[in-house]
């Protein structure tokens, strides 16, 4: 899969393999269906010490619903972008979305990575490794999925910061 910023202020994902397309479709789904206490705790972490009772109460009442809405909105943007995936002749597909969707992509990818990391209880050391697991267990595949999303995040960040020269595509995986 290749990711590049186009001159018209948009980001292109090209040469998307079927398995990559499936992983892209899962970005918004993972966020919607987590229902996991650990994942929930990580997405909505405590903003202060327990002694800050009033602040924490207000946060639960007003801020947390806003954050939930913000995260949902980002996933919706990604879901709609991914729904435009078009299959070219052969097995690759492609999509282009506005640069303004970049932050939504970063958020949705982050949500997916945080949820997967919490659900499968990965240790810091495991997440720091970017090696292909020796045996492809479900856990090993999930780690690959987390790293795949991280690679996309890196490219989207570069596109947002204008580091891409416009035409040099970089191979993500």
């Amino acid at each position, binding site marked *: 899969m290749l990711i590049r910023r186009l001159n018209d202020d948009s980001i292109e994902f090209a040469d998307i393999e079927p398995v990559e397309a499936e992983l892209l479709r899962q970005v918004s789904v993972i966020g919607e269906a987590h229902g996991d206490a650990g994942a929930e705790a990580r*997405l*909505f*972490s*405590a*903003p*202060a*010490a327990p002694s*800050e009772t009033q*602040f924490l109460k207000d946060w639960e009442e007003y*801020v947390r619903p*806003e*954050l939930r809405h*913000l995260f949902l909105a980002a996933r919706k943007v990604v879901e709609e972008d991914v729904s435009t995936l078009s299959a070219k002749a052969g097995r690759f597909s492609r999509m282009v979305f506005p640069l303004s969707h970049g932050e939504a992509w*970063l*958020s949705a990818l*982050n*949500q997916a*990575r*945080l949820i997967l*990391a919490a659900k499968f209880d*990965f240790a*810091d050391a495991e*997440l*720091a490794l970017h090696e292909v697991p020796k045996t492809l267990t479900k856990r090993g595949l999930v780690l690959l999925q*987390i790293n795949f999303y*991280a690679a996309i*995040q*890196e490219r989207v*960040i570069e596109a*947002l*910061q204008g580091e891409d020269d416009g035409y040099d595509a970089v191979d993500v995986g």
Partner: protein
Amino acid sequence: MAETLAESKTETRLDTPWNVVVHNDPVNLMSYVTMVFQKVFGYSREKAQTHMLEVHYRGRSIVWSGVRERAEFYVQQLHGYLLLATLEKPE
């Protein structure tokens, strides 16, 4: 007539600054954390990277200090970017 001296004492209480602290987590990318600091606080890339590295190597960084209301706002912004951020009173 006895002279009365009135003593007045003026006490100025400065609002204690609050810290916005960002904590390390293994999932958020270094480039992402740097970008968020630039966006939320308007920091230069160098300053944002310094804070990011402090988070990465020391486990936490005080990324901003000041009045409580503003600190609360920044903590909320950082949570919107899914960073582990807390509001803390300086010890």
